[in-house]
């Protein structure tokens, strides 16, 4: 299986959010997290038939949803 690398900025994405996403995606892809200077590098190995770009985007979206829930929770209080 080929691998793809997703770079997530440490200033916006927490390690906890990436770990939660990794467990949520355990049936879709294997994820190996590397801690570099500025980014968390997530090496994704798809387990199902899914394009690399699609997998990266879906993974990043899920991470964003998981990242900083205390900020996101206020999204429901707008009106």
């Amino acid at each position: 299986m080929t691998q793809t690398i997703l770079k997530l900025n440490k200033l916006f994405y927490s390690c906890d959010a990436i770990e939660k996403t990794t467990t949520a995606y355990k049936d879709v892809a294997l994820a190996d997290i590397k801690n570099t200077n500025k980014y968390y590098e997530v090496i994704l190995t798809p387990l199902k038939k899914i394009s690399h770009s699609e997998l990266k985007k879906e993974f990043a979206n899920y991470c964003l949803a998981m990242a900083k829930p205390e900020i996101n929770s206020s999204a429901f209080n707008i009106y």
Partner: protein
Amino acid sequence: MKIGQLQNIEIKDNSALININPEIYSLSAIFNAAYVMLDKAFILIDGHPSEEILVEISAKDNSELLELVKEFNEELINYVNYEIREQRDQELKKAIMQKAMIANDYEKYLDQFIFKKKPFEEETKIEKNVKKLKNDTNNTKIE
């Protein structure tokens, strides 16, 4: 291709890159706007929270990329406006809450010390009952 008078939107292939000034838009507003758009678009945030924030948007399904970018910008303004209003009304909310809480405490104070003397009466009743019981037990022992 750069779009808009401010040229803060750059379109590459199937994705748009938006440069956001963090001095105008707070990080929480950006996150909230992104969160609302998650079911319509793929979003990736990069950059630096105090210098320049880059938001990459690519469309899910067949939705128009430019429409998504516009919607994201509208959401951003929406949330920033909400935050500004919230900050402005914070003192007023605080004052209303304080007044409500003080009024509530005042009623409790009146209940306990002015209108009703139940707690003290109840205590004395209990004390009387206890004394009676003690006397009764003493009497039975003597018999």
